[in-house]
């Protein structure tokens, strides 16, 4: 009967309890950093399906291998999977990671686990996405997203050449810090404020191409008298472009990311410009810091901006930019 399954459980429990010597560590890696130790680096990305994070992971893996450090990469299952990221942090601590590099899914969702890791002597560095508060981690290597948004805004403004903007904004995930920073940076760059009548419409599309296309179609249904579009990332821009193309609308559209597909989109004229960020640099600098920490016990601190640059084949006066040819040499993802 059921007793038999109970018995099985008991067997499993005793097996578990009697084997394996135990050290009281209460879920924490016992790490002794400093003093010429070998670095064990854990990377926790938001997901492992987005090419951006795949690039980040590959770059970190290559850098760790080059420096002779152990490297483990884990990820959440979807954007916003805090639980998966907390699990990943716990498992990395179990494996004795000396440094954890993390792109937090939510700026607040994993703070508790990060705190536990740091108390156990693990150095934690945020890559790409800052935590809130920023002091929750030892250091942050990321794009200054306000600056990235601002550059998109400045470019669009210059490309409008004095025309009054009639703008549609396709945002990311409502409430995410990256989304807020890029949105606000763009408005600063183009010289508008939220609620300005020049903003014909705005919709969040969660960074998803098909959602973005749908939202854009709906917005254009309301009013197709527009001349500028802000998009928070390249899949969003592709979705918006499909909706614009269906109506034969020519507008100045900008985006942010700098993935290879995005650079190709710019080259093919789907949108005028994109602002490239450098995930490879984040990963490499993070690994460098991890190796240094294991050797010397020294930690970086604060926000380290890994930079961003406008990619376009129609350069505008007053906006520093690079060509798509340069972009294709420096983009991330499948080349």
């Amino acid at each position: 009967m059921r007793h038999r399954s109970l018995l099985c459980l008991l067997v499993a429990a005793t097996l578990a309890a009697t084997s394996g010597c135990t050290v009281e560590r209460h879920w924490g890696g016992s790490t002794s950093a400093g003093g010429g130790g070998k670095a064990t680096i854990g990377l926790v990305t938001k997901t492992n399906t987005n090419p951006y994070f795949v690039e980040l992971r590959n770059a970190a893996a290559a850098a760790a291998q080059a420096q002779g450090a152990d490297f483990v990469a884990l990820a959440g299952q979807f954007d916003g999977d805090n639980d998966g990221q907390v699990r990943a942090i716990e498992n990395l601590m179990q494996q004795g990671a000396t440094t954890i590099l993390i792109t937090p899914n939510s700026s607040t969702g994993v703070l508790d686990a990060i705190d536990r890791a740091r108390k156990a002597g693990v150095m934690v560095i945020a890559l790409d996405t800052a935590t809130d508060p920023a002091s929750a981690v030892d250091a942050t290597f990321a794009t200054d997203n306000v600056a990235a948004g601002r550059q998109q805004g400045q470019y669009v403004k210059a490309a409008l050449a004095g025309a009054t903007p009639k703008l549609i904004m396709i945002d990311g995930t409502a409430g995410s810090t990256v989304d807020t920073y890029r949105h606000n940076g763009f408005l600063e760059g183009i010289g508008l404020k939220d609620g300005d009548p020049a903003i014909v419409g705005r919709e969040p599309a969660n960074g998803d191409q098909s959602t973005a296309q749908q939202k854009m179609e709906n917005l254009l249904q309301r009013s197709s008298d527009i001349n500028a579009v802000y998009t928070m990332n390249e899949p969003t821009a592709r979705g918006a472009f499909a909706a614009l193309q269906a109506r034969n609308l020519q507008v100045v559209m900008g985006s942010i990311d700098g993935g290879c597909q995005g650079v190709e989109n710019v080259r093919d004229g789907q949108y005028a410009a994109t602002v490239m960020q450098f995930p490879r640099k984040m990963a490499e600098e993070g690994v460098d810091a991890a190796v240094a920490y294991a050797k010397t016990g020294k930690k970086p601190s604060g926000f380290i901006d890994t930079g961003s640059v406008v990619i376009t084949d129609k350069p505008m006066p007053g906006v520093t930019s690079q060509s798509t040819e340069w972009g294709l040499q420096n983009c991330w993802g499948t080349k």
Partner: protein
Amino acid sequence: MTAVTAQGRQRESLGEFFLRAPAAGPALALVLAMIVFSLSTSRFLELDNLSLMVNQALVVGTLALGQTLIILTAGIDLSNASAMVLATLIMAKLFAGGMPGVFALIIGVLVAVGIGLVIGSLVTKVKLPPFIVTLGFFTMLTAADKLVASGQAVPVAEHGVLTWLGSQRYLFGGIPVTYGMTVALVMYLVVWYSLTRTAWGKHVYAVGDNAEAARLSGIKVNRTVISVYVVAGMIFGIAAWQALGRIPNADPNAFQLGNLQSITAVVLGGTSLFGGRGSVLGTMVGALIVTVLQSGLSQLGVDSLYQDLATGALVIAAVTVDRLARRKS
């Protein structure tokens, strides 16, 4: 499939054995997995790793407990995780607004109970298929979660009642245990007892096995089914409490796959999706199998996409065993 032994026909077939003890197969699988990982990784069987894995299984394990009850009545709930997230948001927001944690907790659980009551009523009184009703609720609640929070996560700033399940650890025979584990264990035992030792439990099994036969034998089918959705709703409310204990931050984007993960745990635990057959002990094992697999594979450095591949294959294997067992009997 008959085991050939000296007693020959005296022995029951494997199929019959799995029919009688649906949790036996999963328990064997769990033990096997534990053995494999303890041989292949260095720290797997350390007590704090075992305790860690149990802790990682708490939220989905609690969702799966309620899901088991519903699946036993031949229903299914696709909205349990989004209802749970709504409860976490309500608890966290009320608490942030100055309400004492206890009241915030109770109101959050009551909201989940209310959702269960509405779903149960639609399933029984309006005779709608549970799959469709809860698909609708999943869609609505996912939107409600984002509306309630205006897209923002709500942190639970200070440790108190709401985070109590995860914030406290004490040592039990050298094992670090959280109150969350204790609460989960008590819940499992209570539900197990109710299902196996009370009239209500027998009614739940009877209704899932054959609702018409149950009705003819005098069981109040509708009342039983509604009670199951209400009890499950309460369990999903407590899952919200577990979730805040684990991550003191109510996030409208969290647990997007919780509904499917809870169904996975139930199926791996040997409970039949056709209703009337299964056990909560099996579900407990099922939830642990998923965590053990994830944790063990990640300690081996296996890409998490392969972890998902393995989990999916296991689900299909579990249902195959269920099918074969039924055909044999």
